[in-house]
């Protein structure tokens, strides 16, 4: 190959890498476990002692990732979309799917009345806090 050809190969490789990298840049927050969008109704957030956080799309993904030492677990109230401490939330397992891509059937609620209404409507049952340590 001629002398100038190899630098061209290098530049083409760098351009290809940068281009595909830009294309793959996530548009929104992603689940750290499965890579799916994490702005779902089943979102779970670990607040770490160092001030950073880890966001997951659903309760199964967050559980599978494991709770880091000293982290606070925040789940999303399905009735309002607001975050609430997992220790203060009510959990129901029902026939309704909250996160489609992994078919999550566990639902979190901030108020017991919302949880009871969901349980009634979707033939659910009470389940303990999945993040209890």
């Amino acid at each position, binding site marked *: 190959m001629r002398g100038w050809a190899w630098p061209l190969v290098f530049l083409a*490789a760098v351009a290809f890498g940068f281009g595909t990298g830009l294309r793959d840049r*996530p548009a929104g927050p992603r689940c*750290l476990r499965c890579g799916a969008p994490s702005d779902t109704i089943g979102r779970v957030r670990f607040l770490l002692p160092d001030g950073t956080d880890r966001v997951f799309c659903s309760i199964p993904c967050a559980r599978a990732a494991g709770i880091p030492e000293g982290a606070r677990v925040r789940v999303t109230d399905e009735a309002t979309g607001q975050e609430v401490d997992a220790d203060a939330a009510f959990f129901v397992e029902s026939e309704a799917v909250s996160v489609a891509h992994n078919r999550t059937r566990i639902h979190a609620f901030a108020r017991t009345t919302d949880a009871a209404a969901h349980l009634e409507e979707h033939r659910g049952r009470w389940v303990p806090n999945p993040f209890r340590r």
Partner: protein
Amino acid sequence: MAFVQLSRFLFLLQAVVAAALVAAGAVRGRDPARGGSLLLLGGIGAIAVLAVSGGVLYYLGLAARVGFTPGAMCVFGVLRAGPPALRWVEAGFPAVLVLAGAGAATYLLEHRAGDPTSRTVRAVLAVGALVALAHAGTGLWAWQRLLNPPPGQALSVSCCTTVFDVAEAGSAAVAGGGFAAWWLWGSLAATLGCLAGLGRGRGGAGRGLLWGGAVLSAGTLAVAAPAVVLARWAPRMMGLIDHHCPYCLLQRVPAAPPAVVLAGLGLACVAWGAWVALVGSVRPDLRAEAVRMETGLARAGLWLVLSAAGLLAAYALGRGSGP
């Protein structure tokens, strides 16, 4: 299934070409003046093309079997559930390619120097042709066992996540991540430094030492690079915090396959260059031509390894740091 059948067909073709190289006298020697010479080079080229295209079709075929393999989530799951020969076939592709390249380099070296095909070329080709034959046979046998397991020996149930997800089982790549990162940068710097020195084309006693250094550092680079990429970069590139599977990386990250090709060819250039240097040191009549050829191979290796590293770095830069 079409990929599987095509892969089997290419293995069959590889077996035929390799057997022809062994049996038809090309390996045992043929007078180049009678036209055997070009046939020899054609045979080497055919083996190299079959190894590359066969490798691509092999993985496409394995990917097509994911849905038929209990518990498998990607190619890795099929490899785990299938016969161990599937792994030997994997290792065989680069081996056949390196041997074919070594045969071609030696052949070209002698013919550029005006010599007929020598015993050295025939010996390299004999080894290469036999390895290609064994590789093709193993490939055919492995496909047969995967598609039709013997009675009472059904495929084992595979489970990718228990191997590659740290939360479940951990992995050697992650365990060695910190040390491997330093190893990677050191090996990369040493490889590029040696190849840059050799690419300047100056003769002398130092070239042997530089080739030794290049082979050693390229060898350690070949071990460290996959470990670091899988341990640290793959989870961020794929956006999966605990996932360290090389096959998922190749499927999900578009920068990964060309980077592997560039790095593989670059490391192969180091092997071929060192081989040519060895031939040149044993045969003083070929030394001048050998220096020319190994200089070209060193330059090619330098730019190919640099391009692979640049491609991955540019991808990480373009994608952003966090998943």
